[in-house]
């Protein structure tokens, strides 16, 4: 670490295997291409992070923070997928796991062309509630991870509100009673097919 000036420059080397970590200008989490470990800089030193990879086919893996959550509104507590579907007025699509399990919030960890696209991507995946089964694989073609878990928590409320029906959101009493409690986040990559500026997931019949 260079400390000659009042600015710190930290070389990004994998603490596990010593190889160079590749990093884009805004990356906050770095994946080692040789040993597949994942690192985040906390207070100037690298700390290990778990990075999971969902199965499937695709030419790019988009990273998402997956946060199990509970919500309380004036209509009651939402702590299951079935209750969440009722809150959003959506129908079950695909295999989202048990109806009694905690619903998951999907927050993109990679940049999108604009912040509204980011919210939209999180909203679509959260509404779908896809079951993400991590598989062991070598991380390849992972989109840059530019949002920390803390950022995901900050973005969580607006993504969750984006899933709720418009009629509910227009009620001030509903918003005032709305309380979002996210659980511990899991960082997971989901494979997508890139077609121009859009991403497709054939298994989920999803376009971002």
């Amino acid at each position, binding site marked *: *670490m*260079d400390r*000659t*000036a*009042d*600015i*710190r*420059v*930290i*070389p*990004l*080397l994998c603490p596990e295997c010593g190889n*160079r*970590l*590749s*990093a*884009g*200008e*805004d*990356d*906050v989490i*770095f994946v080692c291409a040789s040993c597949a470990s994942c690192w985040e*800089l906390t*207070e*100037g030193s690298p700390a290990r992070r778990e990075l999971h990879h969902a199965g499937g086919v695709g030419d790019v893996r988009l990273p998402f923070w997956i946060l199990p959550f509970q919500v309380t509104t004036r209509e009651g507590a939402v702590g299951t997928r079935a209750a969440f579907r009722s809150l959003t007025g959506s129908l079950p699509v695909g295999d989202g796991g048990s109806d009694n399990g905690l619903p998951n919030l999907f927050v993109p960890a990679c940049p999108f062309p*604009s*912040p*509204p696209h*980011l*919210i939209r991507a999180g909203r679509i995946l959260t509404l779908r509630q896809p079951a993400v089964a991590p598989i062991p694989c070598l991380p390849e073609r992972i989109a840059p991870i*530019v*949002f*920390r878990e803390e*950022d995901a928590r*900050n*973005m969580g*409320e*607006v993504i969750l*509100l*984006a899933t709720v029906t*418009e009629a509910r*959101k*227009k*009620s*001030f009493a509903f*918003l*005032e009673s709305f309380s979002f409690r996210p659980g511990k986040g899991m960082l997971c990559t989901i494979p997508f097919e890139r077609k121009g500026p859009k991403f497709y997931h054939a298994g989920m019949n999803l376009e971002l």
Partner: protein
Amino acid sequence: MNGAMAAAISCPQCGSPFSFREGTRNALCPSCGTSLAVSGEAGIPRFYLEERLDLPQARSAARKFFAVSGVDTGLVESLRFEKGKLCFLPFWSLKGLTVGWQWMERESVVREELVDENGTKRTVERRGPREQVFETVASPFDFSSPAFDCSAFGLRGIALAGAVLPLRGMDNAELERRGTVYDPVKGVDQVRREALAAARDRSRPDGVLRIRDGIRICAERLAIISYPVWRLTFTAGERMYPVVVDAVNGRILKARFPGCREIRLFAPMLVILVLVYAWTLQRALGGLALFAFLGWMYASRGLSPATLAGFFFRLTERREDISHG
């Protein structure tokens, strides 16, 4: 990010210089190919902008300003340069994303088309029911704010200047040899609060009756950027005139300079004429006029011989000092 400021720092692996853009987190060393994370004390990197004007150029900028600001040319020539000091003023820079929601209640307007007995149509606007609107807020955010009270320097922000100028990694020891380095007084929490308030104001529309929001700043990147200014002091007689010159573009940020001289003939001439005229009419009237004048002088300026001499013989007077910035 293309317009962001670039800073020159050296790579700790190979020692080669590399450029780093303010507002980003990492850079790539062009020589050894190592990815580098750039940070600072408590994770906040500090940079400074190199001055583009040296002292003679700053003096020349100040004199040019005097020449075009209505200062008497004679006075400009009489202004003597005393000293100049380079100062580095700290500014906070916060970049990130604002995300959140806002709920608003506003009045709606209903337009009705009426037809009168002559068949003429006219549109009438009526106040409709109140409508509730929910909006999602998501946009990039760029905020800059002084990190200390710099009202004495006349500089309020650096966003525009900062967009095109090269940055350097802060080196206090090196900078203190060249000038005075001001430390930031404002804390991170206060900057965050100010930035959040600015983000809320930015997304607040007009004509809203009630508003609630849940706006947050995500992916924040904080930096402190020290901006160079020249603080010059000129003197004229016993008076001192400070001038603050932007050391990047030569703009005069704050200045005080002497007002123009004006010739004052009217007041003494009028007094003399009135006294002489009154004396020629009647001596008693002349005496009365003299007492009235002395009474006025006593009440307003005093009756010392110097004051009286000044009133009658100092025929030029300087206007009040002019302040700029």
